[in-house]
C-alpha cells in the first residue's frame, strides 16, 4: 500500500471504530458521565448483572435467535436444494424474486406488513392481541431465510452432481445419499447461513419492534426503551459484552470459511490432476 492509501484506510477505520472505542472505555467509567472519564471501575457491569429486566431480555433474545436460526437453516437448506434442482426457468425466476423481497424491502415495510397481517388474522379469531413470541419467531425466520438460501445455493452449484448419483448407484437411498454425500459438501454454506441467521436475528430491532407482543421483550427492544430516557454507562457495559460476543462469532465464521477455501483448493487440485 502507498502511504496515502495507508493514511486513508486508517482514517476510515478511525471513523468506524472511534464510537465503539468510546463505548468500551466509558463502560468502565466510575462516574455516570458519558463524556468525562473519572476513574476505572466495574460498577456498571455489576449494575447490569442486577438488572433483571435486561437479563431477561437477553435470555429472550437468545431463545428467539436460536429458534429462528435453526428453523430458517433447516427450511432454507431444504429450499436451496429444491431451487437448485428446479428445471423450469419461470419457477426459478419466481423463487429468486420472492426470496429477494425481504432483503430489498426496507425493514420497516417488512415489519409493518407482517404486523398488519398478524393483527388482521388475530382479529378474525377475536383475539385482543395477536402479537407474541410466535409472531416474532415467524417474522425472524422470514427475514433470515433468504440469507441462508443465498449461502447454501452457491455451494450446491459448486458441488459435483455426479457424487450423490454415484452414491445412489452404489445402493444409497436418496435420503441417505443426501445426508452422507451432499450435506458434508455444502456444510460450510449451511454453517455460515446459520451464523448469519443467528446474528441477524440477535441484532434486529425494526422488524421486532413492529411484531413484538407486550409480554416478550428482546434485547434491542429493551435497549430502545432504555434510550428513551437518559442512559447510564450500564448500557455501554452491555454494548461492550455484545461487542466481544460478536467478535468471537465473526472469528468462528471466518475460521469455517477458511475450511471452505481449503476444500475448494483441494477440489481444484483434484480436477487439475484428472486433466
Amino acid at each position, binding site marked *: *500500500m502507498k502511504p496515502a*492509501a495507508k493514511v*486513508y*484506510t486508517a482514517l*476510515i*477505520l478511525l*471513523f*468506524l*471504530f*472511534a*464510537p*465503539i472505542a*468510546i*463505548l468500551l472505555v*466509558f463502560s468502565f467509567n466510575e462516574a455516570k458521565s458519558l*463524556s468525562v472519564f473519572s476513574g476505572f471501575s466495574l460498577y456498571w457491569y455489576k449494575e447490569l448483572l442486577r438488572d433483571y429486566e435486561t437479563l431477561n431480555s437477553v435470555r429472550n433474545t437468545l431463545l428467539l435467535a436460536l429458534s429462528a436460526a435453526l428453523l430458517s437453516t433447516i*427450511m*432454507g437448506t*431444504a*429450499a436451496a*436444494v*429444491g431451487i437448485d*434442482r*428446479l428445471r423450469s426457468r419461470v419457477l426459478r425466476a419466481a*423463487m429468486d424474486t*420472492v426470496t429477494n423481497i*425481504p432483503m*430489498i*424491502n*426496507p*425493514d*420497516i415495510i*417488512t415489519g*409493518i*406488513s*407482517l404486523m*398488519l*397481517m398478524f393483527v*388482521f388474522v388475530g382479529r378474525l379469531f377475536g383475539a385482543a392481541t395477536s402479537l407474541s413470541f410466535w409472531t416474532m419467531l415467524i417474522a425472524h*425466520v*422470514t427475514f433470515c*431465510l433468504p440469507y441462508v438460501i443465498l449461502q447454501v445455493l452457491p455451494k450446491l452449484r459448486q458441488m459435483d452432481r455426479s457424487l*450423490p448419483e454415484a452414491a445412489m*448407484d452404489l445402493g444409497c*437411498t*436418496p435420503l441417505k445419499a*443426501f445426508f452422507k454425500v451432499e450435506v458434508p459438501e455444502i456444510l460450510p454454506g449451511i454453517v455460515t447461513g446459520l451464523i448469519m441467521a443467528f*446474528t441477524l436475528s440477535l441484532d434486529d*430491532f425494526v422488524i421486532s419492534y413492529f411484531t413484538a407482543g407486550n409480554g416478550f421483550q428482546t434485547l*434491542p427492544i429493551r*435497549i*430502545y426503551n432504555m*434510550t428513551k430516557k437518559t*442512559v447510564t454507562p450500564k448500557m455501554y457495559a452491555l*454494548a461492550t459484552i*455484545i*461487542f466481544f460476543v460478536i*467478535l468471537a462469532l*465473526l472469528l468462528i465464521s*471466518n475460521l469455517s470459511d477458511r475450511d471452505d477455501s481449503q476444500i475448494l483448493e483441494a477440489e481444484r487440485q483434484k480436477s487439475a490432476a484428472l486433466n
Partner: protein
Amino acid sequence: MKEKRSLRRARVLESLCLAPYSVWAVLFIVVPLLFVAYYAFTDNSFHFTLGNVTRFFTATSKVSGADGLDREVHTYLLIFGRSLKLAVISTAICLLMGYPAAYIIARASDRTQKVMITLIMIPMWMNFLIRTYAWMTILQDTGILNGFLGFFGLGPVHIIGTEAAVVIGMVYDYFPYMILPIYSVMAKMDVKLLEAARDLGCGGLGVLRRVIFPLSLPGVVSGIIMVLIPSISTFYISQKLGNGKFYLIGDAIESQYAANNLHFAAAIAFILMIVLLACMAFMQRFANRRAAV
C-alpha cells in the same frame, strides 16, 4: 429398474424440499405485502377508501420558518422530501468515502483484504441503536467532540439536533453496505485489463474513468441501493440525532403505528414501497444500459 425408481424417488424428495419454503414464502412474504395495500385503501371498518392516500398528499400543517412567520406546508410531502434529501446526501458521502477505500482494499494483499473486510464488518454487527446512541453522546454540545475541539482551542460546534447530525448517523450506520459490494466487484476485476489500458497509453485518471469505473458499476449500483433504502426509511437515527426535530418518513410510519392508525401507516408504507420500487427499476436500467455500452 431399481436405479430408475430411486432416481424418481429422488425427484419427488427434491420437490418436497421446496414445499415448506414455498408455502412459507407465500404466507409470510407475499400475503403480508397484499395486506399493506389492503389496509392502505380501506378505512377502520375495512370499507374501500382513497382517503389515506389522499391524506398523504394533501394534509397540511403550519411551520414557523427562520423569519418567525408561519407557513402552510404539505406535512407528509415535506417529510418525504426531507427523507429523500438526507438519504441522497448520506448515500453520496458513503460513495465518495467508500469507493477509494474499496479500491485500496481490493489492491492490497490477500491477507490484508481479509483483515480489512472483517474490520469493516464488525461495526455492522453491533446493535444499531447503541451505535447511534454513541454518536449522540459524541456530538452533544458538551460531548466528546466538543471537548476534543476545546482542547485545541476550537469550537464549540453545535451539531446535535441538526440535519448534519442525522446525516453523520446515517453515513456511520450504513457505510459498510456501500464498501462491501464495491469491494467484491473490484476484487474480481482482472488486473490485466488495467495493465492493458496503461500499455495502450491511458493515463492514471483515464484508466479509472474508462476501465475501473465502468467495470465497478454493478457494485456501485448495489451499494447505492443498499445505503439509500435503509437511510430513507430509518426512524431511530432522526429521533436521537435530530432531537426529534427532523421527522423522516420512517418516523411518520412509526408514529402512526404507535397511535394505532394502522390504515394511514399502511398508506405511507405503500407509497414508500412504490417510490423505492420505481427508484430501483430506474437504477437497474441505468446500470444495464451502461454495462451494455
